């Protein structure tokens, strides 16, 4: 509430200030819950703690019931093209909001420019990627069933861990012969650690060393580090399926049990990466990539061929000086996504076929 003070300048009244403080507290609490879900979300889920997020689609920060009636109310101008945005570790759907206003997102821009109906996924990022992948596949099946119009096309935009959850969902969806996988035309990966995240590898080494030192306080420090969630541990090598982690020691030193899975057939896959520096060859970028994910991991180029992911070189774009989180709300990134979306859909599948040959 703005009022004029004696000097004629706008001032904020007490009720207004209280509102601001209350909003700030709510926002901080929400961020805190997101972070808790990222760090110990698996524990919260196992304990059935109320702080644990369940997987749900959101629109304008409200959860959606996947029924035709609810979708007609939330999206009065629903189109036959849907766009699903999947956030990363310790985040929620608000990560897609441009900083200067709370409403502009890649989803809202794609709705305005190309007629895609946006949906935002929220999930417990502390749970295993494969568990979230299976749930995501179910959510997309439910969406398809409830969609009030014939759904012709789905595009998936996934940031960071969301990229792994998306690939996992596509693989489980294909395995279960779900209908939604046939609707997916394009998948965009923004800084997704397909081959693992260096920070998680570093923490794995540190905790192993701490526990190896025969001192109670170092062991305690190692045990505290090992409390991090299953979701975080899956980021070590980019685990996507249950078989990657079941009956394996999650804290074994840099032991990679990852099984190779194919990209979704019939869909075009695009990779967007960021760098911390202007020059992509700068040592800082070579070491730290976008701050959390290095380029070889985001582009699926492994030193071991069996883990390589056949992304097409023309389907990769790098954005200098765009950090990991900035990838979710950068005008340049949006222009690139829009431009790829405008490409003829038939070229996408043929590119994929070529990549697999």
């Amino acid at each position, binding site marked *: 509430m703005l009022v004029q003070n004696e000097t004629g300048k706008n001032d904020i009244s007490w009720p207004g200030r209280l509102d601001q403080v209350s909003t700030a507290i709510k926002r901080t609490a929400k961020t805190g*819950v997101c972070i808790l879900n990222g760090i110990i979300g698996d524990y919260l889920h196992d*304990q059935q*703690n*109320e*702080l644990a997020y369940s997987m749900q689609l959101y629109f304008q920060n409200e959860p959606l019931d996947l029924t035709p009636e609810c979708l007609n109310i939330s999206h009065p101008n629903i189109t036959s093209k849907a766009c699903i945005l999947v956030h990363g570790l310790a985040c929620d759907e608000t990560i897609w909001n441009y900083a200067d206003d709370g409403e502009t997102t890649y989803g809202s821009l794609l709705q305005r420019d190309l007629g895609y109906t946006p949906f935002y996924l929220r999930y417990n990022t502390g749970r295993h990627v494969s568990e979230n992948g299976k749930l995501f596949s179910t959510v997309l099946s439910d969406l398809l069933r409830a969609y009030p119009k014939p759904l012709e096309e789905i595009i998936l935009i996934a940031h960071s861990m969301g990229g792994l959850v998306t690939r996992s969902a596509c693989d489980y969806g294909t395995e279960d012969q779900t209908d939604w996988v046939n609707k997916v035309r394009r998948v965009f990966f923004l800084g997704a650690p397909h081959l693992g995240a260096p920070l998680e590898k570093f923490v794995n080494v540190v905790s192993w060393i701490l526990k190896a030192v025969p001192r*109670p*306080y170092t062991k*305690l420090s190692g*045990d505290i580090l090992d409390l991090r969630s299953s979701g975080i541990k899956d980021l070590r090598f980019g685990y996507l399926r249950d078989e990657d982690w079941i009956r394996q020691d999650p804290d074994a030193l840099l032991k990679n049990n990852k099984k190779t899975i194919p990209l979704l057939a019939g869909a075009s896959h695009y990779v967007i990466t960021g760098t911390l520096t202007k020059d992509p060859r700068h040592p800082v970028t070579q070491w730290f990539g976008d701050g959390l994910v290095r380029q070889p991991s985001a582009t699926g180029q492994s030193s071991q061929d069996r883990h390589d992911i056949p992304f097409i070189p023309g389907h990769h774009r790098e954005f200098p000086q765009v950090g990991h989180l900035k990838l979710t709300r950068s005008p340049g990134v949006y222009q690139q996504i829009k431009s790829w979306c405008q490409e003829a859909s038939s070229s996408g599948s043929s590119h994929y076929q070529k990549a697999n040959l």
Partner: protein
Amino acid sequence: MRKLLGLVELIQTVVDKGTASIEEVHTSIANGPFTILNKIGVVAPVSRCVQEVQKRTIVSVYGIIRAVNQGAGAMAKTLLQVRDKIRD
């Protein structure tokens, strides 16, 4: 309200498990000098006596912390439930 209850439960668990871990480290560090002293015949009887007193003190102090934690948690949960009923 339900989220606050979840937070109370989480804090209680963290304090409880944290206390148990620190107690374990505390006891293990404190046992170091006593292990050596207990092997020296002249001071061994006194050392064992002091060790016993120290062990009991540690158990009591951490026990009190756990009890206060349980009490505070139960009180917070009751207050939240009362607040909820008043609002209804």
